[in-house]
């Protein structure tokens, strides 16, 4: 049987706007995914560690202060350094058109501004995460 997709959602930086990320967390759970939410004021390195420990296939960054591009770039860099480039990075929050364009150039196609229906995020993850996942040794 297919393993559920594991998603780490994180809120790097220091602002407290977490209504959106919490709603996304519940929505992805309702869609059958396993969601680990790191909580607020988490450093990128800590989120990457969590994703590796939790064997996540997706890592989602929430931000409300227009720092998506720099945060996503740092996340990508650290994932590459850890040899985990295959983890899908998605971002959500107050995203302007130019942010979305810049993220696209960085290869991040999952950029979700306010008002995005949860099913669109679910669909994106399902399309971009390989479904035939071999459970790792030791995993149940």
């Amino acid at each position, binding site marked *: 049987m297919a393993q559920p997709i594991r998603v780490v959602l994180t809120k790097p*930086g*220091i*602002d*407290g*706007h*977490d*209504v959106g990320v*919490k*709603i996304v*967390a*519940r*929505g992805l*759970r309702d869609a059958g995914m396993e*969601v680990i*939410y*790191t*909580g*607020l*004021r988490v450093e990128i390195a800590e989120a990457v560690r969590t994703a590796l420990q939790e064997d996540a296939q997706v890592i989602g960054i929430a931000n*409300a*202060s*227009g*720092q998506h591009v*720099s945060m996503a770039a740092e996340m990508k860099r650290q994932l590459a350094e850890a040899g985990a480039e295959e983890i899908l990075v998605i971002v959500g929050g*107050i995203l*302007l*058109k130019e942010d979305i364009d810049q993220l696209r150039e960085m290869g991040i196609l999952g950029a979700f*501004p*306010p*008002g995005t*229906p*949860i*099913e669109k995020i679910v669909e994106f993850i399902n399309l971009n995460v390989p479904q035939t996942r071999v459970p790792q040794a030791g995993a149940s």
Partner: protein
Amino acid sequence: MNKIDKIEKEKVFKTGSGRPVKAVYGPEDLKDWDFNEKVGVPGEYPFTRGVHPEMYRTRTWTRRQVVGFGTALESNERNRYVIANGPTGISNDYDVPTLIGLDSDDPLAKGEVGRMGVAIDTLQDMRDLLDGIDLNKISVSQTINPPAPILLGMFVATAQERGYKLENMAGTSQNDALKEFYAQKTFVFPPKPQVRFTCDVVEYCSKNMPRWNGININGYNIRETGATAPQEMAYAFAQAVTYFEDLLARGLSIDDVAPRFSFIFQINNDFFEEIAKFRAGRRYWARMLKERFGAKDPKSWRMRMHVQTAGSTMTYQQPEVNIVRGTIQALAGACGGVQSMAVAGFDEALSIPSEKAHRLSLRTQQVIIHESGVCNTVDPLAGSYYVETLTNQIEEEIDDWMRQIDGRGGALACVESGWLEQNVSDYAHQYQMEIASKERIVVGVNEYQMENEDYDVQTFRVGEDSEREQLRRLAKVKESRDRALVEERLDGLRRTAASGANILEDVISAVKVMATEGEIINALADVVGRHKASAIV
């Protein structure tokens, strides 16, 4: 089956907060209802109709636009621009580092300096922020919570330097830190010592600044996080009760402190429910102060409120439509009898407001005041079967929540256990599900969308130079101050904090020798520790 029944069969009608609504309301809905007891006379107990006898006929509400970005110099310019357009008060938002007590040169502050509000590190920033503004004429609202003693201290120092009398200074410290733990999330200290510092500000103001609201109980952020209208009121009141208990234990009387308790609430989209919420809230507060706390001064019974239209209802899609939402919400505020108002910028979901958005927010209120006619008479919806029924229902639900919170040991205990946060998250989730299923329609979001929408809105972005400039300003202050004197004052503050006495005088004296906000926060955290975030979903 008549036609109305058929429609009701097909669709459930309910308010924004999920309360079922009937097709028609009439006298049978208000059977045991006594007009004089429940509604009465404007300006008199229980203040259902408003806190002044003639309301907007003698004085319209204060138009208070929120300003805050970049350095103090940049925000000062915008403060002056806003004042030139008519308001009698300014309201400043601070950047996230300032809100959580970090200096601009803290590594964690990188990228956030001046971004979502103005950066304040030292007294010099406060001087510049208020430069050229007549503090005898313009009231100043500080949207700051855990660091409220420091920001108030900087204001006091600035006002004194400029020769103003503290007793004439009008303004507000938001200073409602309990909601930080489950709503705005800009917490610093653990809940218990936080309540104490909050009450230190209230106590200082009650003794030295009679025209300053030392606390502004915040339902707004609770609602923005997902609460319903009755939860917004009840949770705010429960927080007020916690502060009252602390202040009474200091030997202050309820009539010493309650008259300067003010409130900030949100105005959401459901027109009649929001009006009823303001009416029910005033009535509940008056009864609670009189009956539960034994307040004798009518000023203690009056709930004065600032309101803001709901930032969370401002859509990213088709942003100009938000001007319409803001108008409907502001109209509900006017019909609800509020004392002060801010209309969210129509570009709220995209950026902090542009000058154009600021102007339109003011114009919205000016059109309501001068052209709509709703300010001609007091509490125009009194006696409406529907609005009075809603007012009764919301009052009952506020009471029900208050009893539950009291039963769980009060707001402080409910913050510590996470119960309040869970309730708010639950409704936020339910609401979102209703949007997803189209049970609720949000124009432009789940209906009436535009394909490949290209918004034609000039968004405001803080210049990249602001952070660098603020770092330069802070470095300059740090170079020119007497480091030993700063340490001496911070040590004094630590001793006072450890003794349990009021910290305000020590904070003010530290501010005056250019101790930074971050240094003062750290000194206090040395004594009381810091709060660790939860990850409740």
